[in-house]
């Protein structure tokens, strides 16, 4: 009971203490609650975080492994690809090298051969020189010929002039224009005139006399009756026994005695016929021809078979030289010959067909 009493004495203090403690605890309840919540939340946080971290780690591990796997796979593919490409490049390069060599060779040999072109140009220059020299030679020859012809022409002209102007030559008494006393020298025309033989003007043939056989002298000037007394000079060679000069002269200057046939005009018969016809016509009274019998008078006109033929009238001769009328031929085929073909014609005449005759 002492204890109880003690205790009862202390009850107030204990109750007060209890109240004080409760009050304190009440005061600190929120704090302690907050602190406890904080500790719990920290702890929960740790746990959750570590769980999540673990999960993350696992996931990352899985992803890492997976990515490595895919990456390696891709790299492998890329590697294979690049190796293939490298090989192809290599082959391409080698092929290009072959093609390069071939193309260079081909172009240099067949398309543009520098050395052969150089040689060609050099030979062209040489050929040009040759042609130039040849042409120059020919031109020179042509010029020479032309000059010669010109000179010949001038000489001929001067000679013709001199032959016609012989009267201009100077005489002893009267000096000519070309030999003028006022000039210190004679002109070359003077020498030219002196050196050329003058040409007499041509004899105009006498017109109008028809051929008369009774004329005794023919081909001679009618005014010149006298015959020359001297014969022309003999050539140098030795001559035999000579006839009498009168005989020779008579023989030489014998009159022309043409026969009647020679003497007749060529057209004489024709003219005579026409004259007779004209005279007969002029003297005729009746133009109708006399036919003795009735049969002759009333004979019907019978045309020639030649003209009445149904195949048409073939003109006498052809209308013109080398006329052909292929539409009137019996057939368009050509004739065959029995003569063998001439090989020369093949060369010369391209139209000649072997074995056939030309139309």
């Amino acid at each position, binding site marked *: 009971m002492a204890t109880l009493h003690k205790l009862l004495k202390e009850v107030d203090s204990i109750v007060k203490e209890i109240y004080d403690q409760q009050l304190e605890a009440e005061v600190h309840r929120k704090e302690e609650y907050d602190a406890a919540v904080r500790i719990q939340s920290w702890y929960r946080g740790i746990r959750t975080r570590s769980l999540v971290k673990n999960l993350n780690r696992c996931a990352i591990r899985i992803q890492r492994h997976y990515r490595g796997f895919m990456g390696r796979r891709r790299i492998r593919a890329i590697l294979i690809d690049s190796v293939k490409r490298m090989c192809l490049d290599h082959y391409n390069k080698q092929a290009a090298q072959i093609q390069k060599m071939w193309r260079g060779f081909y172009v240099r040999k067949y398309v543009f051969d520098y050395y052969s072109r150089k040689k060609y*140009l050099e030979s*062209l220059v040489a*050929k*040009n020189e040759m*042609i130039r020299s040849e042409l120059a030679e020919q031109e020179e020859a042509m010029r020479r010929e032309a000059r010669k012809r010109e000179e010949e022409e001038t000489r001929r002209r001067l000679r013709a002039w001199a032959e016609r102007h012989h009267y201009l030559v100077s005489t002893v008494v009267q000096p000519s224009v070309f030999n003028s006393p006022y000039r210190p020298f004679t002109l070359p025309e003077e020498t030219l005139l002196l050196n050329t033989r003058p040409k007499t003007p041509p004899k105009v043939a006498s017109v109008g006399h028809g051929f008369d056989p009774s004329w005794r002298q023919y081909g001679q000037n009618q005014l010149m009756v006298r015959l020359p007394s001297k014969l022309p000079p003999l050539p140098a060679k030795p001559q035999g026994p000579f006839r009498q000069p009168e005989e020779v002269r008579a023989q030489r200057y014998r009159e022309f005695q043409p026969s009647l046939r020679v003497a007749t005009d060529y057209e004489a018969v024709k003219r005579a016929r026409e004259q007779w016809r004209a005279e007969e016509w*002029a003297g005729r009274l009746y133009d109708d021809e006399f036919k003795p019998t009735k049969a002759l008078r009333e004979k019907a006109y019978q045309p020639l078979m030649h003209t009445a033929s149904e195949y048409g009238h073939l003109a006498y001769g052809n209308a013109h030289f080398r006329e052909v009328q292929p539409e009137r031929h019996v057939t368009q085929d050509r004739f065959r010959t029995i003569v063998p073909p001439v090989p020369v014609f093949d060369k010369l005449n391209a139209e000649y067909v072997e074995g056939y005759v030309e139309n």
Partner: protein
Amino acid sequence: MSQRQVLQVFEQYQKARTQFVQTVAELATRPQNIETLQNAGVMSLLRPLLLDIVPTIQQTAALALGRLANYNDELAEAVVKGDILPQLVYSLAEQNRFYKKAAAFVLRAVAKHSPELAQAVVDCGALDALVICLEEFDPGVKESAAWALGYIARHSAELAQSVVDAGAVPLLVLCVQEPDLSLKRIAASALSDISKHSPELAQTVVDAGAIAHLAQMVLNPDAKLKRQVFSALAQMAKHSVDLAEMVVEAEIFPAVLTCLKDPDEYVRKNCATLIREVAKHTPELSQLIVNAGGVAAMVDFVGDSRGNVRLPGVMMLGYVAAHSENLAMAIIVSRGVLGLDAVLQTEPEDHIQAAAAWSLGQIGRHSPEHAKSVAQANVLPKLLRAYLRPDVSEDLQIKSKKALKHILQKCVHLEALEPLLQEAPPNILKHVVAQFSKVLPHNPKSRRLFVTSGGLKKIQEIRAEPGSALAEYINTINNCYPEEIVKYYSPGYSDALLERIENYLPQV
């Protein structure tokens, strides 16, 4: 009156007619009399004399008519209007050879003036009669008939076709083979006139075998004949490749080259025309001519001749060079560029200069080698001058500009390009500067030369619109040099330097 007296009257009348017609024919040879004769009404007097019974009077009347019609086209029209032609054509078939010659002369004199008169001649049925005359034996008749046919065919393709349809061509080819020289000339000229219009006509002439006979006459000594022969061959060869090849197959080369030195200038001109027509079709034909030495002969021809005569030669060189660069090099090697340069310099006529410019352009445009050879002959300044002269024809301007452009686009020979920097107008300058901008970045020696020769200075002086091609090229060139050098040569640099003096504070 007795018969004799009656006949005497007729004889007197006949003598009078003969004398009249012969005097008129003689007077008609002089041009000053023809006006008087026309005013005196000679046409109406001559017409009945054509129907005279005496053959001499007929022939002389026809001759007089021919001479009158020959003089001018009014008289020829009077002949046509007077219905004389049908009578002539009719009697062409009947009469003797003198009359035929005279009648063919009248037809030719009428037909030569204009296509309408030639058509009138054809409408009278003259062609058949003339073709029949071509079959005569007398060479004079054949010559007159061939001459008339040639004059008819000369005017137009239709008339030539009608001549061919009348069957004249084989007979003309036969006439060409005759020994008579004037007949050969006329027949060759007629063939030339027929074949010049169209390829079909030329083919007809070739089919008649004309080429072989014409080719045989190429070395004939007569100059006029050679003129016609070459003209005929040229007209045939110009239409197509096949015809040109057929002409060449007649083996005229190299004999034709000797005719390039003939003393007669028209022979030379026609010969050059023939070679040009053959060369222009294909490279193979040009190669054939070059291998026969044709280029050397042609260059000599161009050097020796003057004026219009050398125009075909100049064009031939251009055609040959245009085909391939091989042939252009062959021309350069044969001294063709010097020859063409001489033409460009010395010829007064614009069209020949234009042809020379064109040919030079064809030679130089193939490769830098060719352009260099052309530029080294000092041709570019001349072309530029030809382009810039104010009084030249448009043709020459266009051709020289094109030639310049072609050559400049391939020219890398810088010494030849520098003179052009000064004088060229902007459209040419851009090509010149383009070439510089191509060469300078790669060649240090040429860069140095460019600066020392004053080229860089000139470049700086060029004003170009920014963004144009010229500005780009100038930029490229400026980038080849360090900045100081570029600034040094730019215009106004000395002024800029002087200005710096003003702003400079002297350091004491």
